[in-house]
């Protein structure tokens, strides 16, 4: 018998990579599972079973945190997917100053999130911020963007979209430019309009790009922390707390075991939402 494939390299060569993976990924993961069940002061620890999980779930702000995290993830994800698609399609077509416009859209992604957060929280100041002073100039009294408990979370989500839509657009541009021009030519011969081209060719055929955007921005939204911390610190009160900011507050208070338990919960929560979503999206891609 002739073997068709020859094993060129020995599996032993995986060892260094595996060791790195073990030391920097597997080991911390297992350890964090362990430390989430301890009362931990960095130097010593007591094993206390599931008490940390119990405490974390009885956290007053946790209900708000779960709801906010979901709202935040869904809102930012939807806007990035939709806006990114239109921007991507627009910037792939023949428009003047295309490259300039592309860089304008991409520019916010290059900025530090903290800097963006601080800048926007100044612009959103209820009476002195540039947003409300401009609104006042045309006779509209703007709300307190970050102080009003009903809209504070959405204000932060808006900034997140402003900052993140550039990445989505780039992914869409890549996806759209991979569509064979023959489809568009065929459509033209059949007398289709630009609108037909967008809805019947661009949208369905950029589906793989859309799925990447959905997954990336949804998981990013679930784990989001830096922007909310820079803009509201979870306040006023607890109204804009996300799971990640609740965890950070525990850590800040020196409750390391409790914060670790929160992270394990976040990890499990993100997995429970993200894996089925990914499966679903992957399946719908095949059906194309």
């Amino acid at each position, binding site marked *: 018998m002739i073997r068709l494939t020859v094993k060129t390299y020995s599996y032993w060569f995986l060892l260094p990579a595996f060791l790195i993976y073990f030391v920097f990924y597997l080991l911390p993961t297992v350890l964090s599972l362990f430390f989430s069940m301890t009362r931990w*002061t960095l130097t010593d620890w007591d094993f206390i079973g599931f008490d940390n999980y119990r405490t974390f779930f009885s956290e007053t702000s946790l209900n708000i945190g779960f709801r906010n995290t979901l709202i935040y993830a869904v809102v930012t994800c939807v806007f990035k997917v939709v806006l990114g698609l239109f921007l991507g399609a627009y910037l792939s077509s023949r428009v003047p100053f295309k490259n300039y416009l592309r860089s304008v859209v991409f520019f916010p992604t290059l900025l530090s999130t903290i800097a963006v957060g601080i800048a926007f929280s100044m612009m959103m100041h209820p009476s002195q911020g540039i947003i409300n002073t401009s609104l006042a100039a045309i006779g509209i009294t703007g709300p307190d963007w970050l102080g009003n408990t009903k809209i504070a979370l959405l204000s932060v989500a808006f900034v997140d979209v402003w900052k993140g839509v550039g990445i989505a657009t780039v992914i869409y541009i890549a996806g759209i430019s991979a569509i064979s021009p023959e489809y568009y030519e065929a459509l033209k011969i059949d007398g289709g309009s630009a609108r037909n081209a967008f809805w019947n060719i661009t949208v369905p055929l950029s589906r793989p790009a859309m799925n990447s955007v959905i997954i990336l921005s949804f998981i990013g939204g679930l784990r989001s922390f830096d922007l909310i911390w820079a803009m509201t610190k979870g306040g006023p009160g607890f109204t804009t707390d996300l799971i990640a900011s609740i965890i950070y507050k525990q850590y800040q208070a020196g409750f390391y075991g409790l914060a670790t338990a929160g992270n394990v919960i976040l990890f499990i929560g993100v997995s429970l939402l993200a894996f089925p979503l990914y499966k679903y999206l992957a399946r719908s891609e095949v059906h194309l």
Partner: protein
Amino acid sequence: MKKTKRYTAFAAALLLVLAMLAGCGGGTGNGGGGNGASGTDGSAPSNAPKKETISIMVGSTGTLLDAMKAVAAEAEKKLNISVEWDIKPDGAEGDNLVKTRLATGDMADILAYNTGSLFQALNPSQNFVDLTNEPYMADILDSFKQTVTSDGKVYGVPTGSTRAGGIMYNKKVYKELGLTIPKTWAEFMANNAKIKAAGKTAVIATYKDTWTSQLFVLADYYNIQAQDPDFAKNYTANKAKYATTPAALRGFQKLEEVYKGGYMNKDFLATTYDNGLKMLAEGTGVQYPMLTSALDEIYQNFPDKINDIGIFPEPSDSPDINGLTVWMPNGLYINKNGKKVDAAKKWVEYFVSPEGQAALSGKLKADGPFVIKNVKLPDDAYAAVKEMQPYFDQGKTAPALEFVSPVKGPNLENITVAVGSGITPAAKGASDYDKDVEKQAQQLNLPGW
């Protein structure tokens, strides 16, 4: 043939791993060492004490660092010990840094850090040198010592003056409007109404910096203690709660009443501490529940306005109960596991000596009376500080709760923002805080929780 190939692969993999480990080892080798050479060890015995360098970890906000540098300059002349400064951030970030550095054995020789509940969280007996039997301890007031005592041993010396928490007010505006200092909460609310009617902000609220929202609750502790002397003890033992002790609940209710009266500045959620100080100094805002450490900052930015600022205690419901809640100064602690414990001990001894304190208070304007005997307030002390002195003289002071109980929930500032801006009712806020406290006590593994 096949076998040799496998061995070669294994050997190659092993080599890679070894190279990797060697790389890591080289990296960590330098990290742990710390402050390097402990003086040139030529050690020919000479008369002058050997030049030594110790490190001090201290926060950078306020005037303490500058004042300590002044002491260090004097100490270097006298003791031949120079100081290397190890600057840490303040607030919760600094707390974490301190805990991490202690845990990794990388702490400076001397640490300047909070007293009271935050100090208790550092595991003092394991980390710091016991100073109980040092001769200078006799000169330090017991009210301070209890805040740096753990298991009956004293670990720290004070870095400065006390501060009070109360209602800071603009005396000029008070005079203009013909107001008098309120002795009861009802009088305070009446003053607020008059100030509001005059078109000024009655109570300054700066909830953009969330920590400033806690004062109505924290500065009310004198009133709680006056009505319920065992509150701190019972509270630490999980037998008294904010929500179920009427005297304690009042703090949250007062916060709510001020919000409901509409006495706060517009945009209070977007207003910062610095804005608040400016409003107080300029008299657009008339009263500010705050710690007197704010006096330093007002003095830095508005030196000509500093004597317009006064302070009165947070009023209680009875005119007979009227006293100040006092915050103790930070402490200096000597790292037990440091390399230069003896030099650090000498330095600390100099720091609390009359000479050291003279150098210190030359730079540090007092925010309240001192806690070392024979260190008196200078004549040029701030007007507000002089206004505090009578309460101290008459014994009408109480240390803030965080200095007499290790229990303090980390989320108080968020809860007080919620109550103070009408999101949460006072009673709910108090019970939220009780839950927060329970979590902290469990994490500290206090008995009875």
